[in-house]
């Protein structure tokens, strides 16, 4: 029996200066939860978001930052060249942006 995952996870995130915070995740699958941080459209970090509800990204390089909360979506275990084929991270919040 493979694990079944019920519902679709959602969460709200807020930005206060550069400090990110999140609310509880509804329909929480309990899988890896992470902040995806992009600078000028390029992913620069994916720190974990499970243990703490707040996070401030230390990077102060100039640019436009976009942050979204993501959760791992397990579809199956299959991989090609070590990378998952069907399973992937999905956005579970609206993005927030700030500029340095």
């Amino acid at each position: 029996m493979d694990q079944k995952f019920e519902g679709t996870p959602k969460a709200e995130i807020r930005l206060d200066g550069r400090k990110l915070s999140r609310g509880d995740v509804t329909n929480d699958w309990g899988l890896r939860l992470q902040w995806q941080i992009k600078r000028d459209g390029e992913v620069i970090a994916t720190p974990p978001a499970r243990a703490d509800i707040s996070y401030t990204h230390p990077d102060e390089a100039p640019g436009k930052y976009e942050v979204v909360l993501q959760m791992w979506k397990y579809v199956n275990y299959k991989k090609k060249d070590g990378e998952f084929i069907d399973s992937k991270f999905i956005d579970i919040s609206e993005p927030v942006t700030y500029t340095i």
Partner: protein
Amino acid sequence: MLHIGNERVPLCSGVDRRSFLQAGAAGLAGLSLPTITQLEASGAVDYDKAKIKNCITLFLVGSPGHLDTWDMKPDAPDDIRGKFKPIDTNVSGIQICEHFPLMARMMDKVALVRSLHHKTGASHENGQRWMMTGHDFNANNPQPYIGSVISRIFGPKGNLPASIILPDKIGNTGTSTPHGQKAAYIGSAHEPFFLGGDPANSDFKVANLTPPEGQTDFRINARQNLLTQIDELQRRTETKTTRDFDTAYARAFNLLTSPETKKAFDVADEPDKVRDRYGRNTFGQSCLMARRLIENGTRFVTVNHFDTVFNLSCWDMHADGGSLDNTYSDYERSLCPQFDWAFTALVEDLEQRGMLEDTVITVLSEFGRTPKLNNRGGRDHYPSAWTNFFCGGGIQGGQVIGSTDKIGAAPHDRPILPPQILASIYTAMGIDPETTMMPGPGSRPIRFVDAEPIEELL
């Protein structure tokens, strides 16, 4: 047709007695065996002095690598220490894997046993038999599952079986040898009840214990009366086995007809916040159901985290590129977070309800994994050293019992064998493993486990 557990029970065209056995697994004591009263009188069992009244076992089928989880070796060479980093916990000097951040905050409640080992073979089934029964054995000499022993000694508290396994029995894990989750000589009346369903399915709703549409309580009761008459006829040729079956039948009907029983299985009855906290997945919802079952009278629940190791993401990290292609990515994204989320929810929930004092959670697995990474970056079976742990139930937390050498290849001090884990649980539940004897095959008195409990835990 009724569905009890995962069994289809034909009621209109015939009576399938075997189908009821699952639902009625935990019944009254077999007549030829000593009663709880006799055991208490002899001093072998003292329920009043038991530190633990209930046990929830989270059985990590496939087995996590000890070097990647709870016995990390950050100073070992690259091909041994692996990819993950250790983090501090709330107990000074104890570190665990970075992917268990929530567990790290409650390490003061956890006792890690880092020197487990056995020597009878490296198959999953060897380890399953050890951890579920305290023995390794072949199919001709089966030994009873610990939940069946608990059921046999203490019996059920109400209509719920004393011993339940969620969400399903262990299936194919490599060889066709026993998994150790059967009652064996204890008798079929004490077979664990297997849920045989997935509580994370949105349409679960105790469907496996609910008669299909059109099957009213009246019709069920009418059939019970018919069964009673058939049983009366059969008593003329009664054997111990048929008596066990009768007990199981009675238990099956109790399960079907008791609203309290059905409610205990109904995780949908929990607030969404609670269900979210456990994780909306099969393992998380099974852990939540385990809490509900204990709360409603079940004494021993095992949650099998996976029923197979093939073609799915599980702890069996061979990274083989085929049907066993679990890697560090599975651990990091699925397995460790899922376990961390559900385990800590269970601990918090039991504590908030005042149940953690007399309920122990044991987290068990079949073996460790090879200290040296294989050439694909995975780890293979390794029964020479691994870590399991206890939490709650008055167990002394915040401690590490035993250790392994510098590369996690063998116990360095305080080597612990699997039967000692079971002897510790029995002892904490008020059963003296030294003196409690049961008639085994041929009525020969035998002990459940031949081992000393781990004193540091108790």
